[in-house]
């Protein structure tokens, strides 16, 4: 299992969060933590999530799969940033 931290911008549309969470469960992605908060722009929300991937699955693949969800505006891999913030 590999651990990754992602930050997504979602459109504030009904069902947007559900679609992301279902994508995680149907692709076998383990969610360690998840938080949703309003983004600076009122029509967007920011979703921060820490996930664990099964062996053989890549974060690049997951980012692309998240990217094709219509209500996802952007996906950023913050795994490295988080390590810096923690001083690790």
């Amino acid at each position, binding site marked *: 299992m590999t651990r990754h931290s992602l930050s997504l911008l979602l459109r504030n549309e*009904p*069902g947007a969060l*559900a*679609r992301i969470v*279902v*994508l995680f469960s*149907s692709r076998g992605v383990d969610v360690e933590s998840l938080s949703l908060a309003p983004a600076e722009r009122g029509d967007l929300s920011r979703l921060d999530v820490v996930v664990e991937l099964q062996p053989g699955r*890549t974060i*690049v*693949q997951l980012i*692309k*799969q998240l*990217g*094709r969800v*219509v*209500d996802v505006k952007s996906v950023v891999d913050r795994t490295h940033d988080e390590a810096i913030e923690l001083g690790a």
Partner: protein
Amino acid sequence: MDTTGAGALIKALEDVGCEVIFGMPGGAILPAYDPLFDSKIRHVLVRHEQGAGHAAQGYAQATGRVGVCMATSGPGATNLVTPLADAYMDSVPIVAITGQVARSVIGTDAFQEADIRSITLPITKHSFQVHDPADIPRVIAEAFLLASTGRPGPVLVDLPKDVLATATTYTPPKLATPSRPVLSPVQIRNAAQLIGSSKRPVFYIGGGVIRSGAAQELHKLAEKTGIPVVTTLMARGAFPDSHPLHLGMPGMHGTVPAVAALQRADLLIALGTRFDDRVTGLLPEFAPHAAVIHADIDPAEISKNRKADVGIVGDCRDVMAALSAVITRKTDLTDWWNYLGGLRATYPLGYDWPADGMLAPQYVIERLSRLAGPEAIYTAGVGQHQMWAAQYVKYERPGSFINSGGAGTMGFAVPAAMGAQAGAPDRTVWAIDGDGCFQMTNQELATCAAEGIPIKVAIINNGNLGMVRQWQTLFYEGRYSNTRLGTHQRHPDFVKLADALGCVGLRCDSQSEVDGTILEAMAVHDRPVVVDFVVGQDAQVWPMVAAGTGNDEVMAARGIRPLFDEEE
């Protein structure tokens, strides 16, 4: 224009070019059926909502347009789940419109309430639930655009009953022009370089080539390069079967030369395909010596199952046009073709006649292909008959074979044929079906009879769930647990059933009658025809790569492993 939500829905569907809806009314969707009564849009009243969904898929694949199905809330909507899953797996552009209970009672377990948006989250490209009738035209336009652009797929539009009933003003939707990904010139150049330096290249063609309408570009590029072509189950018809560069279908039941081409290649040029397990066999043993160029409109497919050396995000038509423009000369592939030509000569597709003297199913399909020809449209269910339809019908044009590839939905053939025939009334449409599949969805023949949709059905009746029986023969010591259907004992009698459904019913059980029966069926134009071809129960689909093994173990027939033995 002053109207209601329902009026806006029908007007919007007209404005985006919808010409036919397959559906069934019910409580929550009822308001939409009133303006539909006066619309120029044809409505085909199905007998089960699953039939509406598969018909929309058949229509979409026969015409290249968006297929539309409509159902009421609750069970009407849940009956669309299988077609949505099927369309998602095979990237078929359909829009499903469902009624929903009134906004005020959503979430209260109201009568015929089902949260269809949540139920279909993992099997739709996108979904909408409309809460303001003024949004309906925009949502319909967006749904059509999403379904048909990028990687096509199913989109759900859920409409609460009171939203349909509320007064609104109709504003025509703005029809956005679809954008296509811009190709990376660097990746095109890298791909061209790999192609130029390869000695054993192969075009590995998937259903994306058909979806993008790129058959002509493929023809041009293949002839320009002289590189062998294999077409997957979803791509049958993308390249003519009669073309000398075509080695046929790869995969679990692919031809020996097509499987060998992938296994021995030094370069796979994978276009609009997704390295499905039915093609790759055991992934670590797939095409072990090959570099991979992978072009797909969906970036998430590239390097998903097999790492691409050159990944190109783009529409297959654009990709092939760009490659054609930069590739200037033919490379010498004499050795490669000598090898593949030898396999093609030694291991052609073939079959034995059943020992019990019954009809060979492959012969029936071979004759059907010959007599109905490449201008017909063929649909199939799932199982042995589907594989024989992929192997023994000779396809010459895209859109002529419509089947359920990714999802493997039994019962797909009849409703898909209905949709294809509605979209292509001038073509002959043959549903090649199994006796198991046929019993799942044959109620739509009543729809076809009532609506004047004269499809033809060839039931390859082997009395069993044939593919499962084949696996029981090969892997379960012939213990035939629950695969006998009793259809050879006429449970049911398909000829009588056809008659009862308002169709012509014919039966054929001997070789000498096959051509005559097919011609008799083809002479009927005023109603559907069902032919019960009673065939032997022990016929098997070969070649075969057993599940969980590598493609090098492909068996031309039981126990004969051409590639495995080659390495000895």
